């Protein structure tokens, strides 16, 4: 993975100094709340319900074991001994003290980490596929370009205070796992017909209050223009995006208001001036950064391993885990492993200090000292030998990291919700845990098969509920918490937004509602259908009919 040189290190060190002084001025009353807010937000610090929340950047989801160990230490020293991995591949601390943040940043800087632009109205952490570099379906490893874009976006002066947050995702696979269509800019890297690196650029996607999938603004952009083309897009947005209403300030609203044709025209006018400007990426820069992402020193292994086969034959629990948590790898004899941060009954995405240390040890011992965070809020060991899987499983299982539910109903994607977040209308974690307990039967979960359930505590949609096969949105009705349910959302190449099935439910109704949705699926599915396929074939109606069959007809509609 990318290693800092003196220039990178100087920038994060200077950031610590800058932020330390900003915090000092705030505490001394020299900066007002309003003035300090964008400064702390651009350093990932929210003021939350109980305490501040600090979001630490994990650029494109890559971590070294040393970094994870430090994150675990920080969670132990400055927080309550755990952290929350988010849908943006970052790590959030829920209980740091505002005055400790400069010290936390100083500790992060010692392991080449920071919290720069993890929040606020600026270009956020750039995300990508958690299997980048090892996925068999990968056409281009997008990590070098992601790193080049990370550097370019860091303190970009022109885009320091945008109308609203700005999220960029990059991917390089046939099957999109980076949800490029739901980002402000999505960059899909591919090799063109001349075998040259090119980018399909999506713009104007996003969830939140107004969920919209992105539109292709440029089907073939040569890679060296990635930065200047983004500058053209973001300049048009910076100048013309709405600033009077934060709910209408994302680029998707501007693209929709102007229409993609007019928006594209304006971008092309800007780009005609920016094309080939000094920020054009050079071959040598791409080569330099790419060296950091070269293939690991893999051993030449056979595609099969006798000890692995024997374990599969004799150990059903191991087999169940392998089936869900182990993924194909482009190198023979290697696999990628997902460590589940979704044990039933705990907050999805949470990891304790001890677990972070265990995962760091596993990475050191079995996966070249590196790991990744997935946007599904799990941790990935990307390069594990087939013959090591059993040992990894045993250690992971002993530490609550081997729930074999990856991609199953209880692998819930969930925001921190009303327990922590001051934006939330409703709690989300208790809903997740109640559903996990309702479906706490692994055979049944495996029978239900591939399904994605997403929960957001408000319409800001940090839990990406719009693209959940089942999406749950917390809404506020006269001061009490209700949950609106949608089905039919999906990420990936055939991304779609879910449809709301009807009036909202109370928290205690939710496990039964999900149960009823699953019952309809089990009854109606064809042998090869996943939940999402059945929903797409039958539409919402039969699900809605069953869920509301015995509900009082006087129930009022609750809308978000």
């Amino acid at each position, binding site marked *: 993975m990318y290693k800092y*040189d003196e*220039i990178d290190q*100087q*920038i994060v060190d*200077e*950031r610590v100094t*800058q932020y330390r002084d*900003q915090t000092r001025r705030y505490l001394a009353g020299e900066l007002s709340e309003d*003035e300090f807010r*964008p*400064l702390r937000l651009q350093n990932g610090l929210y003021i939350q319900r109980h305490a501040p929340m600090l979001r630490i950047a994990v650029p494109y989801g890559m971590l070294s074991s040393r970094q994870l160990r430090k994150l675990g230490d920080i969670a132990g020293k400055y927080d309550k001994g755990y952290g929350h991995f988010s849908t943006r591949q970052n790590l959030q601390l829920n209980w740091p003290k505002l005055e400790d943040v400069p010290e936390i940043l100083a500790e992060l800087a010692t392991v080449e980490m920071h919290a720069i632009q993890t929040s606020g*109205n600026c270009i956020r952490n750039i995300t990508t596929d958690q299997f980048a570099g090892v996925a068999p379906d990968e056409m281009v490893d997008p990590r070098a370009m992601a790193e080049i874009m990370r*550097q*370019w*976006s*860091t*303190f*970009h*002066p*022109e*885009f*320091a*205070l*945008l*109308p609203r947050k700005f999220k960029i995702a990059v991917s390089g696979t046939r099957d999109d796992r980076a949800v490029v269509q739901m980002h402000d800019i999505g960059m899909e890297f591919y090799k063109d017909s001349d075998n040259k690196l090119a980018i399909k650029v999506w713009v104007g996607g996003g969830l939140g209050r107004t969920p919209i999938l992105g539109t292709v603004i440029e089907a073939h952009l040569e890679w060296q223009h990635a*930065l200047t083309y983004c500058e053209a897009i973001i*300049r048009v947005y*910076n*100048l*013309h*995006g*709405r*600033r*009077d209403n934060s709910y*209408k300030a994302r680029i998707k*609203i*501007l693209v929709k*208001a*102007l229409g993609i044709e007019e928006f594209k025209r304006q971008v092309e006018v800007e780009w005609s*001036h920016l094309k080939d*400007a*000094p*920020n054009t*990426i*050079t071959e*040598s*820069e791409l080569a*330099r*950064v790419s*060296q*950091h992402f070269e293939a690991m020193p893999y051993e030449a292994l056979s595609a099969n391993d006798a000890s692995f086969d024997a374990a599969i034959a004799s150990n059903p629990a191991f087999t169940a885990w392998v089936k869900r948590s182990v993924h194909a790898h482009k190198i023979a004899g290697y696999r990628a492993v997902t460590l589940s941060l979704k044990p039933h009954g705990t907050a999805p995405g949470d990891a304790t200090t001890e677990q972070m240390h265990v995962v760091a040890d596993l990475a050191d011992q079995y996966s070249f000292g590196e790991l990744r965070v997935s946007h599904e809020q799990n941790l990935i060991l990307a390069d594990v030998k087939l013959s090591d899987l059993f040992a990894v499983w045993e250690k992971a299982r002993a530490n609550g990291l081997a729930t074999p539910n990856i991609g199953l109903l209880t692998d819930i994607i969930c925001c921190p919700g009303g327990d922590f977040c001051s934006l939330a209308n409703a709690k989300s974690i208790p809903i997740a845990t109640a559903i996990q307990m309702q479906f706490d039967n692994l055979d049944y979960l495996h029978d239900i098969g591939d399904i994605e359930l997403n929960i957001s505590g408000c319409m800001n949609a940090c839990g990406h509920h719009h693209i959940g096969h089942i999406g749950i949105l917390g809404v506020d009705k006269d001061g009490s918490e209700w949950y609106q349910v949608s089905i039919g959302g999906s990420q990936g190449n055939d991304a779609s937004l879910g449809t709301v099935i009807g009036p909202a439910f109370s928290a205690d109704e939710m496990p039964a509602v999900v149960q009823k949705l699953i019952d309809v699926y089990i009854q109606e599915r064809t042998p090869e259908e996943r939940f999402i396929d059945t929903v797409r074939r039958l539409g919402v109606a039969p699900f809605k009919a069953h869920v509301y069959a015995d509900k009082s007809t006087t129930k009022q509609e609750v809308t978000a």
Partner: protein
Amino acid sequence: MSNLITLNNGVAAISESEWTIVKLPASQVEERKQAGKVVLFKLTGEKTVSAEQIATAEISSAGKVIVPLSVFIARKAELQDRMTSNQIGVWVDTHEILEDLVSSVSDLNSLPMIAVHVERFADGRIFSLGTLLRSRYGYKNELRAIGDVLRDQLYFLKRSGFTSYLVRADRSATEALASLNDFTNPYQGAVDEPRPVFKRYNRVA
């Protein structure tokens, strides 16, 4: 003490301003000048400043003055002589259209001073306006940030081509000086240093 910071050959110092900013008289009608709606204004021709405001804006008869763009465009004839003696600068609001300024003069560099007024410090359009004035329109003279100008934005203003900064009156410009140098080696090219880091240094992997 003056609250103006000026940058001369990269060296920042507090200095006295020779320029007086001409303000528009308060409007009688509710102002509507938000971003995004600018697009709408262009389509509908709706104006953000009334003819009366333009006509009654008070321009002192001597000394260097920075006049609002709308006043400059409408009353250029009466300012013509003072323009030739470099007494007239123009300020634009962040929602205004730079092309209107550019097309109002035969040579942008005939203006010794352009200022951009930022109403709220968090309005980042000012950075794009500075960048465009310098890189697109080739403006070479003094470019000043006025309005809600605070120290934590100075570094970005400098990188976006601004060479003087009128810090908000209730804040210390002297203390703000330090923030111009928050970072030594920026990653990306911008107005003050167009080359990105990978074209300035031979970075090795």
